[in-house]
């Protein structure tokens, strides 16, 4: 394994971001492509929209398990599924 920084500093944030993004797409328990990972000082914030509260919890659980030392917060929403209140007219 290649260390890009001093031992103890952890992998550079960009690799963590890339790994989280791939983890969320490729892990069978999640398979979400629409989650964005944003760096905020020393923490990572997850943004996006999912289809159920269960999936939001799964994403947080997976990321915290894989990166126990990285503080992660989530701002993931569950997409509304109400009937529309407006129509669009297309001539």
């Amino acid at each position: 394994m290649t260390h890009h920084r001093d031992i103890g500093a952890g992998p550079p944030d960009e690799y963590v971001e890339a790994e989280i993004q791939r983890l969320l797409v490729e892990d069978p328990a999640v398979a979400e492509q629409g989650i964005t990972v944003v760096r905020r000082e020393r923490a990572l914030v997850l943004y996006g929209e999912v289809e159920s509260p269960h999936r939001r919890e799964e994403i947080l659980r997976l990321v915290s398990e894989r990166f126990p030392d990285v503080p992660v917060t989530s701002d993931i929403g569950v997409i509304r599924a109400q009937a529309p209140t407006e129509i669009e007219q297309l001539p």
Partner: protein
Amino acid sequence: MVIRIAAVGDVHLDEDVVGRFRPALEELPECADVLLLAGDLTRHGTEAEARCVAEEFGGLAVPVVTVLGNHDHQCDQVPQVVKVLEDAGITVLEGNGVVLDCAGGRLGIAGVKGFGGGFAGRCASDFGEPEMKAFVRTTTDSADRLGAALRSLDCDMLVALTHYSPVPDTLAGEPLEIYPFLGSYQLGQAIDSAPTALAVHGHAHAGTERGTTPGGVRVRNVAHPVIKQAYSVFHVGDQLDTDQVSPIGQSGSQRSWS
């Protein structure tokens, strides 16, 4: 003649989502002649997830027509997925079309999943390594089949249904770097090769709702994370009251059926 089209894509169903859409779907007969599903019905394309789709979108009082998305291919169970959907009365299109008799006329729908490749001036070319050629030829074949299906339908109104986007307009909000994985201009070219009235797609979860092909066909991205409601409803027709017509760029008008 007005045909009422409800559409949603990227519902990514599994057991944890079953039942969330159903109350809104029960209202469909009052507001739409057909429901179009723009692919990514499941998370991984398993037969079990397809059964969730059949439960949620089967047995509705309006016809349901779908294409598959990339997620529906993930587990290589496409034949099983298609069978479960068809057994539930859902029409699955891939390079073909269907004509439905609606109150406002005969609605023709042609569908393909489509594929990536990018858009004019910034797209992949059929050149170089075999992997690259295979990628671009997948797109071209898909677009050719969509064009042929659109041109073959005998109907009063023509709609194109894809998972991947035919235009870059409806991708606005997605990172530019991934546009070639979200759609291809060849799909737009296919749509413009026929008198298409509306093109509906999904796949771009962070995109925007409205766009137009170079030939002037309206394009709508109906991915669930984009529309943020159970489905969108479009009234497509040529004899609308002028006060009902919403100009492009406005979000629509009040529902007229309630």
